[in-house]
């Protein structure tokens, strides 16, 4: 029998771990201290993300303790055959600068693989930085040894993430490095840099479809023959119907499909962590780029759709002969900035085709009728634009009491200020503060509706919406679907204990 480690018998208050939004500092409401990690693992890590590239093998060069997490991530995905590792030992640090063990280890893996990968992602780690490894030399040597393989230079270096790009941001740049410019296909829209597949019913997808475009994304709904990530959204649709209705969604099942990214006429990302990488790709190829974050306010959704329509209109007017031409990326929206209000003419043009604003509001009102005055908590895992979502729900009349986050995205400043002014008692709650080890409800102790798996665990509730990275939904249709998921969560309990510890929500999982 395991002995339960009891919580301290003295009271631990929320001070420093939670704050009224009116009193919170922007964009860092909580001081950096020791960190607690909740048993909620639905977010994707670099293994999940890197394996989205088809026919690609991953090789990590790191110490045992660091290796353990990534090798078992791959194993839990059932993707162990696409993963290999090279262990760093003390002697490797003393004898040389890790170049030799990295080059020879990676070479040995490739030679012994039962198949020849088209591409290999090689992950170097914090240690390589600190001993001054010549990464350029490492990759130059590997490329000379294996000229038929595209090497992606990746990093698992979390020691750098607080002062620069995170490993995920770097990966989302490196994983597109092999993409070479192809003749432009103006109707091809690549939605990249996101972990969850874009919902074919989303406002983005339907806007592209209406404009006559097609969408290519890595983690699409046909991957490995399974409808990964979005199947829950279309339970009522048979495979055949789905095929017809969503034929504008192009599969990306092999490396050649992946290389077609080079012909895209427009690049889109919805993820703040995808902006850097996808922007760099678009810039290198000389193609337009849009950042369409999963905002939730009516006006903001309208603005983002306006940007999309404008870009699509411009793009479809191009001739296909502009492939790979030099020139700066035509950026319709960049990270951390807003596109601003559309001009009057543009608004007039769009007015007739903006869909579902009223449907979204009706869906929220319907959910409100069911959920009523129930306490609602939200976490940043569900939607990176968590304050935008909180604002929308509060405006709709829901009783949102608490938002779980550890920092606020700079692009959320407008929503932060609105909430400060209009909902000053909304609590911002840290997730990694040491007090959070005990400041959570026990299982089934909480009487609330949680939006997001972390909110569910902290709240101790079985009534929760299990979405990560907004689950691929977007816009007004996203709000509609979220409202439906909220109703479902309120009516039906989930097995929190079984669900939230699983890694990579939406990915393949053998657990």
């Amino acid at each position, binding site marked *: 029998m395991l002995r339960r480690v009891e919580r301290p018998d003295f009271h631990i208050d929320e001070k420093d771990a939670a704050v009224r939004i009116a009193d919170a500092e922007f964009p860092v409401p909580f001081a950096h*201290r020791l*960190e607690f990690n909740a048993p909620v693992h639905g977010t994707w890590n670099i293994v999940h993300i890197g394996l989205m590239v088809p026919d690609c093998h991953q090789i990590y060069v790191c110490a045992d303790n660091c290796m353990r997490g990534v090798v*078992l991530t791959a194993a839990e995905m059932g993707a162990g055959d696409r993963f290999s590792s090279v262990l760093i030992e003390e002697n490797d640090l003393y004898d040389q600068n890790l170049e030799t063990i990295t080059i020879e280890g990676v070479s040995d893996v490739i030679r012994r693989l039962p198949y020849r990968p088209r591409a290999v992602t090689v992950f170097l780690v914090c240690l390589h930085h600190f001993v001054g490894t010549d990464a350029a030399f490492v990759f130059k040597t590997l490329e000379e040894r294996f000229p038929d393989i595209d090497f992606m230079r990746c990093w698992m270096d979390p020691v750098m993430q607080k002062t620069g790009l995170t490993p995920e941001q770097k990966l989302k740049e490196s994983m597109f490095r092999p993409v070479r410019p192809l003749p432009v296909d103006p109707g091809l829209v690549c939605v990249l840099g996101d972990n969850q597949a874009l919902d074919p019913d989303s406002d983005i997808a339907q806007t592209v479809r209406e404009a006559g475009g097609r969408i290519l994304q890595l983690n699409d709904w046909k991957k490995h023959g399974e409808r990964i990530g979005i199947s829950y959204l279309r339970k009522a649709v048979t495979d055949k119907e789905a095929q017809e209705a969503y034929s504008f969604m192009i599969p990306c099942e092999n490396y050649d499909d992946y290389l077609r990214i080079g012909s895209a006429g427009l690049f889109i990302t919805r993820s703040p962590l995808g902006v850097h990488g996808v922007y760099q790709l678009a810039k290198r190829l000389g193609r337009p780029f849009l950042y369409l974050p999963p905002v939730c306010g009516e006006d903001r959704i309208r603005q983002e759709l306006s940007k999309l329509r404008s870009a699509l209109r411009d793009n479809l007017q191009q001739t296909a002969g502009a492939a790979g031409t030099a020139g700066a990326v035509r950026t319709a929206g960049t990270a951390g900035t807003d596109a601003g209000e559309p001009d009057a003419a543009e608004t007039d043009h769009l007015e007739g085709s903006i869909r579902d604003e009223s449907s979204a509001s009706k869906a929220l009102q319907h959910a409100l009728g069911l959920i009523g005055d129930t306490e609602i908590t939200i976490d940043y895992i569900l939607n990176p634009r968590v304050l935008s979502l909180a604002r929308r729900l509060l405006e709709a009349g829901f009783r949102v009491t608490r938002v779980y986050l550890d920092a606020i995205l700079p692009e959320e400043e407008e929503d932060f200020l609105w909430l400060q002014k209009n909902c000053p008692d909304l609590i911002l709650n840290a997730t990694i503060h040491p007090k959070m080890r005990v400041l959570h409800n026990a299982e089934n102790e909480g009487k609330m509706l949680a939006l997001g798996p972390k909110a569910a665990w902290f709240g101790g509730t079985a009534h929760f919406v299990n979405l990560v990275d907004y689950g691929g939904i977007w816009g007004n249709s996203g709000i509609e679907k979220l409202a439906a998921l909220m109703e479902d969560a309120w009516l039906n309990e989930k097995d929190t204990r079984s669900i939230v*510890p699983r890694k990579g929500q939406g990915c393949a999982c053998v657990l």
Partner: protein
Amino acid sequence: MRQVFRKIPVYTGDVSGVCSALFELGGMVVMHDPSGCNSTYNTHDEIRWYDHDSLIFISGLNEMEAIMGSDEDLIRDITESARIYSPGFIAIANSPIPYITGMDFDAISRLVEEETGIPTFYITTNGMHDYTRGAGLAFRQLAENFVTEPALTDKTALTDRSLRCNILGMTPLDFAAATSVESLRSKVEAAGFEIVSCWAMGDDLEGIRKSAMADVNLVVSSSGLAAARYMFRKFGIPFTAGFPAEGTEEVYFEAVTRAVQTGENQFPFRDRREPVNDTLPVCFIGEPVIMTSLAAQAEERIGAPTYVFGATEEADVFLGPKDAALCGEEELEEALGKLGRTKVVADPYYKDVLPAGCELISLPHLAFSGRILLNEIPDLFRLIIHRLVKLHKRLGHALALPSLAAVLRPLKNSGQVPGTQHLLRSCTRPFGCLCSLTRLRAIGYLLTFTSSDGILTSASFNKAAERKCESGRI
């Protein structure tokens, strides 16, 4: 290359070993690392994390702190958290970056202790070793910091009382089945021993403090070795390596008694007897104390020659002349190739390194395949390994990953409901099937399966297997 792992995972790392060892003792463990160690530990290596509020944190080290040292920040952060929780002790574990920058953790520990008045110690991990080393270092620090010479009143003559023992090396990384602690305790007590402490499941710091009252230490996994050696030198307490697997209790407890009588450390399963028949050899791969104990059981009951390939650090200490400590995938493949046709008892994730002719007998191990096969990990103290081997022989199957449940789930998700024929084709892993019965039922399958040789085809077999599965016998 020895350091290349193309097919198999790596064992749990040393930092996770520290956390696992100290989890239940009411202390606070701080990993000085950027981020990955904490998530890896509580996702893959710690099955108690969801239910138990143990104080294990990470410092969130960043580039500038690593370069500049920033000792004062670490001390402040630890001190602040310590003031919130008043833990029984504070343990600080090192990781790769502070290791190469040469951070002075001994000094930091002293300063934290001065600030808080709480016993604080440094555990010399660096992220480049396996869990047996990390847990071993943690247990040794416990011994050094908390175990004191017992008072004279506690040292009554052996003739006046039953023998006292400590159990060293109990962590879920090696003993993940929920019944493990109780099973071992009941066996030890049934043999007439009094248990002073169990390092460190089902016990607390107060129990650990009394450990020097024991007459003997039972080292049930490699993780207990460092503390056992320390207590042998410091207090003259001998140890016995191994555990009483089903059917070996007599041999084992004789060795324990002999350790007390002679004052010499005992390795009852290191020098196993020579084979008495020409049965196929059985090879055991994994943590050496566990595997030598199970090998002794199998050898005793089957009469087959057994070999143990110790796959964790310092395995040599526990291995006999027939065994070998192996590092890495290539060495293992080479050694198995030399053995020829054999049965291999190991975690199923070793399957891919087995040469043709080897049959894998599945024995999942949390420290290797993590939580993937958690529900199939048996109570090693109740496991009857020779039955497993014999039954496997009757079924005559090769083992294959992923488990049956993993094979079937995508089919279910895609709307295809496999019939018996499909199950037959999928059923390449009989023990996975047996152990997955409950899981299969949970995901909505009616299970009918048979073996390719037709020996076991009836529903009664399924029922028998199910009973065994549910009773934790497999």
